[in-house]
């Protein structure tokens, strides 16, 4: 069992290193977020699986599973909130940025400056 736990720990460290290198080397906020969210969450999940296998008691398995589920549920939410905020503040993208599929409805950007009054309502 020690071999399995050691393998999971090293694999988790490797994916965390991949996430950190991606955050350092990617050219853009949005691509950096892509690296940090997915690889970082995967590395943490691998290390937690290794700890659960090593300890093996019911309590540690439940806590590790709860942490993995929570991490995988909240990491996309945090990344989406951050990306939306960056887009509304019009953070520049890498390269030309010709294709912008959510530019079309202008309300999306205007909305960040305060809620618009609904037509027909006070």
């Amino acid at each position, binding site marked *: 069992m020690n071999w399995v736990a050691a393998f999971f720990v090293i694999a988790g460290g490797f994916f965390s290193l991949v996430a950190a290198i991606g955050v350092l080397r990617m050219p853009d906020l949005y691509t950096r977020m892509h690296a940090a969210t997915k690889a970082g969450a995967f590395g943490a999940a691998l290390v937690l699986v290794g700890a659960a296998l090593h300890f093996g008691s019911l309590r540690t398995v439940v806590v590790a599973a709860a942490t993995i589920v929570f991490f995988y549920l909240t990491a996309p939410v945090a990344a989406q909130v951050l990306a939306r905020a960056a887009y509304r503040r019009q*953070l520049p993208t890498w390269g030309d940025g010709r294709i912008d599929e959510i530019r079309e409805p202008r309300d999306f950007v205007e909305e960040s400056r305060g809620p618009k009054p609904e037509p027909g309502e006070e």
Partner: protein
Amino acid sequence: MSFEGEINVLGVGLAVGGGLYLISIAIAMVRIVRGPSSFDRVVAFDLLSGLTLGIMVLLGLGFGQPVLLDAALAIAVAGFLGTVAFARYLERGGSR
């Protein structure tokens, strides 16, 4: 379990994994210092909270303390709330 002459497999794994984690934390710190905008720093902070979670689990493995897994769960909650709070603040205003 381990007698004279046998390698402590988990110890070696913890050393290698901990080294990888320390390098990752250093690299994330570089992005926090450099990051052109505040959003980049928040992304690096988000990654750093995940790395701290992993470090906490490694410490629990090394010291044989399963209690530190609870600390890892608490770090996950705090990191998520911090990231969302920073994102909401930067969306409304604040220095870009």
